[in-house]
């Protein structure tokens, strides 16, 4: 009887020990999964989104440059004035200045179309202002860039070929 109880005790002890191993293995799996999730969230490239807007479609085969500005940023005003003062004259495309309010007062050049449309501005989802967005004739967005200075605006307007990576291109330029 005693020996049976002893062996039972030993067996239950062994069982507990085994459970510990099983449990730690389980925890390890959970940790690995968590780490993989974190890696996946940080490392995975975002899916390529093709943005397009029918408002910026054109029939003459020329691209459209949209300068997105805000009334409340003084550099936006400077960039718009620079564009208005003839910077866009050499650009091979249509010129549009888009804002939620106020920018139409900054423009006197008939070659530049001011669009005051908060809804359209929201649909574009531009984070930094002023930004320049280039649209292909079919209304597809080709690239968007933050315009930090008047010289940058000139450079960006002169880029006539479509490129998927204007950031790298500007560094080379």
């Amino acid at each position, binding site marked *: 009887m005693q020996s049976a109880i002893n062996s039972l005790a030993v067996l239950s002890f062994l069982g507990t020990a085994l459970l510990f191993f099983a449990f730690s293995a389980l925890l390890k799996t959970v940790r690995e999964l968590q780490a993989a999730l974190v890696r996946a969230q940080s490392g995975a490239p975002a899916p390529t989104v093709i943005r397009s807007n029918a408002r910026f479609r054109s029939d003459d085969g020329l691209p459209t440059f949209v300068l997105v500005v805000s009334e409340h940023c003084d550099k936006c005003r400077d960039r718009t004035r620079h564009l208005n003062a003839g910077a866009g004259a050499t650009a091979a495309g249509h010129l549009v200045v888009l804002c939620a309010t106020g920018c139409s007062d900054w423009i006197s050049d008939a070659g530049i179309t001011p669009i005051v449309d908060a809804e359209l501005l929201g649909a574009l989802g531009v984070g930094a202002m002023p930004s320049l967005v280039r649209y292909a004739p079919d209304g597809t967005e080709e690239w968007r860039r933050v315009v930090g200075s008047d010289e940058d605006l000139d450079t960006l307007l002169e880029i006539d070929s479509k490129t998927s990576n204007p950031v790298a291109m*500007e560094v080379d330029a």
Partner: protein
Amino acid sequence: MKVRAPNGQTLSVEGNPLPFNGRWAYIAWLFGQGGAQRFNITPAGSAELISKELGDWQRLKIREASWNGGRIVSMEDPEHAGTTMVWVGPHNEISSYVGGVGVPLEVFMDMLSKFAIDDAVEGLTLLPLAGSGLEHGRLLATNVIDQLCSVQIRPIAEAAETLPRSQGKQVRGGSMWRLDDRDDQGTLLTRTAYVVNDTTATSVITYQPDDPKFISVAGSLTCSLSN
């Protein structure tokens, strides 16, 4: 005085007999897979002001846009082929340095988008987002008492290897050591007081080594960092 450090801790500095010149400036090192990145967190407008004071402003190429409730400015130095990038918020600003010229503003926006940034009067916090793989490493907080000394505070964990072996003098803010730097003739060049307690290691560095007011400042200053 209680302020917020960029890593979210509360920095408390009490007992200074003379007022500090301005608000605190911090240098924070963020560690990630690609090594360390240094950020300066200073009162808004500092980088621009300092560069104008130094007379650098004219030769810099400035880019600026408005982003995330503040201004994002890049100051490109063609002479040294480097770019200082700054995000200027309502109260404080974050700046960092990127090598090279023609660096698009998007580069800095990408860097900052890995953080939750909260800018308030009591300090700016720059907390890495989950999954960014970044974490706060070293931290240095600095301020100045006009005409007298500069004060530099570090968390105690980073100062462990710089602690003197000898027993320091007990003062209000912890243990104090006085470090004098003399030349061959025995003339005092600089004098630093090093005050260490449970959470911080503080260096108080004088501008005039024989200024008698200095040692009373070092002896009464109490600094602490808490979560």
